[in-house]
């Protein structure tokens, strides 16, 4: 039963674009395309659930009709990711239908419905690939189709610039991924994953190190790990909201999939250094990511930086799992791996919800600047309620799904103290400190996002007259919010399957037991908290609605409220060393400093990796090229001399190497 469902899932995704391309003139397709997309997602969901239950994992081998080995198939690890992609893309599809109708002309809508299924399909190909060719095929298409979806949204010089950076960095990353597969070549004929798995144990040490390094760089580029994250805050905000949701929520996760595949499946044993590298990269990304997010006013850019942070948190878990595994502590490795995977899944849900919610906000208020919003919860109650759930989730608060993964990570960091290695004993518990700081900062950041945008009084006319988004849009966000709350209150839904997966990957059947009481405790506490909340809210009281206290003045204007800029000010001052802010206060007119007509305040972060890392690197390359240019005299005799010298050099080299 799983085989036809899985094939149906892929087939609908592949056929849908053709259907739309040929039939877009008939009005029916507008309903048909999203319906088919949801149907394919449902097929995918049932295929993974059935496969997981029955243990019959479908395989689709297309090698005989293609010139290279092309295998797609599910195993436990892939099914988790296929489930995730199907679930999130289904909710996003429900959202997309009204979203594109209100944003795009007829023709553009058609292009969205052409590229959206292809984008989803390419991600499915990546996570179900059973051969390197299939993997790289999906990996490249994923970049191209997401870029196409960004391009459908509009065109401007700035967008083109951002898109080019996105494509450049993705191709650089893909080159590294390609190289790390090719390094297996003489040892794994055909580069099927089965062959690679067999070769993992016999690869020479130098090659193993090179493979792991390249895999780390390649996947980290896709994941948006600092300092190779610069494409992420450029590409995610300019995409249409549902596409940003899929890019941040799902596409980044394929990198996590790749790392888990390499670290726990391809190689039977990975040395600790790789784990430490990932741990360190995770710590840097998590901390800097959330600090950059705090200063952003634009909601989508803020969310993009917060994705950098959350990938960092996942890396913390993944890195510690690899360290544990390398030291033989597979029970702890299992716990950390479950934590990392749980955070991956949870982040997919709440981050896509936040991006979709941002789409609803911009649809009705025509702005994403937090400082112009306010009071939206009363005006858009359904969207607001789901955004509240998402904000609590991303802040890692209990009874929401974000807490579950972070909790497991805290518990697994404690396990570092049981390792014989003194370095791990110190490094892993200290990672708990990083996670705690990041957690505190993200709570501050998302208190700001929800509190400034959805609470208080509207700061601008557009927010004042905001309306609830169309039904499809809030149903889409609502479905994701339900998933976040369900996993938060009853984590066994998620942790049950993930701990089975972790036992398989770490080769330790006890990994599932390491969870202990954890999943059982949260439902009990949730009931207790809800009971007390209702008791407290039901206190007998007389309520009177009045104006907000204005210190005895005639009245408050909405502009007297704290803005997002004001809210993050204390933390920006504390971490000024990270931002090195350039502050300008402009008071007009000059001659009336105490009664000015206008005061403008601007504070921008001056530190950026583009300025301090990429620019010098590019400059160095250009300078080197300038030097090399001297060789180009334009004189044919000189060129003949170069050829002659090169020939002699090569002959000498061959002689020496012999």
């Amino acid at each position, binding site marked *: 039963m799983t085989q036809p469902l899985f094939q149906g899932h892929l087939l609908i995704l592949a056929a849908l674009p053709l259907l739309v391309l040929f039939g877009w003139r008939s009005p029916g397709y507008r309903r048909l395309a999203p319906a088919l997309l949801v149907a394919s997602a449902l097929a995918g969901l049932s295929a993974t659930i059935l496969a997981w239950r029955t243990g019959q994992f479908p395989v689709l081998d297309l090698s005989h009709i293609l010139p290279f080995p092309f295998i797609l198939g599910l195993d436990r690890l892939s099914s988790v990711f296929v489930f995730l992609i199907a679930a999130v893309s289904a909710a996003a599809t429900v959202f997309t239908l009204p979203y594109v109708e209100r944003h795009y002309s007829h023709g553009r809508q058609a292009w969205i419905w052409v590229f959206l299924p292809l984008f989803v399909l390419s991600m499915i190909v990546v996570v179900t690939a059973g051969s390197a060719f299939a993997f790289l095929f999906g990996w490249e298409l994923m970049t191209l189709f997401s870029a196409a979806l960004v391009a459908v949204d509009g065109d401007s010089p700035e967008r083109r610039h951002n898109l080019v950076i996105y494509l450049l960095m993705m191709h650089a990353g893909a080159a590294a991924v390609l190289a790390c597969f090719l390094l297996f070549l003489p040892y794994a004929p055909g580069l099927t994953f089965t062959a690679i798995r067999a070769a993992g144990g016999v690869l020479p040490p130098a090659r193993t190190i090179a493979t792991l390094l390249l895999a780390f760089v390649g996947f980290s580029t896709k994941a948006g790990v600092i300092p190779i994250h610069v494409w992420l805050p450029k590409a995610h905000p300019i995409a249409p909201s549902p596409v940003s949701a899929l890019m941040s929520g799902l596409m980044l996760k394929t990198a996590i999939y790749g790392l888990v595949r390499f670290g726990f499946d391809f190689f039977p044993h990975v040395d600790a250094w790789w784990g430490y590298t990932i741990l360190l990269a995770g710590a840097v990304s998590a901390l800097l990511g959330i600090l950059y997010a705090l200063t952003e006013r634009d909601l989508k850019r803020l969310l993009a930086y917060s994705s950098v942070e959350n990938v960092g948190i996942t890396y913390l878990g993944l890195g510690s799992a690899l360290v544990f595994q390398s030291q033989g502590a597979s029970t702890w490795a299992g716990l950390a791996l479950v934590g990392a995977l749980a955070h991956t899944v949870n982040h997919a849900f709440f981050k896509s919800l936040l991006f979709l919610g941002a789409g609803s906000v911009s649809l009705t208020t025509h702005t994403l600047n937090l400082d112009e919003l306010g*009071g939206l*919860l009363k005006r858009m109650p359904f969207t607001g309620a789901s955004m*509240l759930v998402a904000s609590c989730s991303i*802040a*890692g*608060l209990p*009874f929401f799904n974000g807490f579950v993964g972070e*909790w497991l990570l*805290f*518990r697994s*960091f*404690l396990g570092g*103290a049981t390792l014989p290695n*003194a370095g791990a*004993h*110190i490094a892993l*518990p*200290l990672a*708990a*400190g*990083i*996670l*705690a*700081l990041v957690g*505190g900062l993200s*709570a*501050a950041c998302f*208190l700001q996002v929800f*509190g400034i945008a*959805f609470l*208080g*009084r509207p700061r601008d006319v557009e927010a004042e007259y905001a309306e609830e988004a169309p039904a499809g849009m809030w149903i889409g966000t609502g479905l994701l919010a339900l998933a976040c709350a369900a996993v938060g209150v009853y984590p066994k839904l998620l942790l049950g399957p993930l701990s089975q997966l972790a036992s398989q990957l770490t080769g330790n059947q006890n990994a599932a037991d390491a969870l202990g*009481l954890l999943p059982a*405790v949260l439902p009990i*506490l949730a009931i*207790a*908290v809800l009971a*007390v*909340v209702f008791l*407290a*809210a039901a*206190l007998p*009281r*007389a*309520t*009177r*609605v*009045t104006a*907000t*206290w204005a210190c005895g003045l005639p009245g*408050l204007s909405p502009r007297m*409220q*704290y803005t997002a800029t004001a*809210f*993050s*000010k*204390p*933390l920006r*001052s*504390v971490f000024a060393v990270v931002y090195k802010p350039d502050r300008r206060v402009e008071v007009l007119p000059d001659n009336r400093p105490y009664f000015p007509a206008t005061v403008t305040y601007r504070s921008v972060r001056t530190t950026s990796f583009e300025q301090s890392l990429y620019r010098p690197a590019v400059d160095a390359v250009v300078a080197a090229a300038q030097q090399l240019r001297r060789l180009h005299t334009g004189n044919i005799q000189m060129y003949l001399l170069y050829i002659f010298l090169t020939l002699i050099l090569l002959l000498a080299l061959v002689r020496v190497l012999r």
Partner: protein
Amino acid sequence: MNTTVVGVLQFVLLIASAPLLGALIARVKAFIQRRQGLPLWRPYADLAKLLRKQDLVPSSASPLFRFAPAVLAATTVLAAAFVPLFHGSALLGFAGDFVIFVYLLALGRFFLGLGALDSGSSFGGMGASREMMVSALAEAPLLLGLVSVAILAQRANIVEMVTWTLGQNFFDISAVHAVAFAALAMVAVAETGRMPVDNPTTHLELTMIHEAMVLEYSGPSLALIEWAQAVKLHMVFALLVGLFVPWGMATSLTLAGLGPALGIYILKLLALVLVVGLLESTIAKFRMYVVPEFLGIAAALAMLAVVFTALMRR
């Protein structure tokens, strides 16, 4: 008597006597300042008065405004059920993992911050913004301090950590405990909004943190917030006592064991009250931007405690 009864007793004691603790500290300060001071029942009278009064809700506020104090109260009360006082158990001790404990408090604070921003006044934003700065910076030393103790005890459950320390000889206690205690005591000051981080008696906009957040609340909502704040203070005291000086706690469930244990617990609390009262009378409140340095020192101490655990291994 079984554990559940003792658990309920401890829980009720923690919650019911919490307002008294604040009054006792105020009394110590009054004594030092040669004032007569408030009567000890005064906080209870205040709460009763607030519960009878009208609840004023700003016209701009959403339903979340009224909901927030209830969430704060619920999470604080639930967290209180994790902490042992005079017997090595707690009502919800089985669930009392220290990470959940810390994050339950964070949940309450998050909602109170949302309520503050919902009031539509600049005070709410000011308070929420400052509170989040303090709590974001306090989180790392808090969890690291607890992690270092948990590593020694090899347990993550608060009750089990307390009973483990109880089983140790006082004179064998390690440097980890000393350093972790220093870190957690500093964090406790910040978490409970006491001097020198925050002054619970001030209403000056330049300095207030917690008070600015709750400025727009009145009536029963304010009563819930004030009471939750008092419970938090008692809970943090009980946690410090339990983790670092649990000796004297009862291990048996007999009346002969519990009676003296209760007496010893009250004595320990009174000693803490005296120390806090003296401290608050002798030091001035920090400027806002000295607080991060204060918490930075706490974080450094907590990191030191974690590093020490590695050195102490046999």
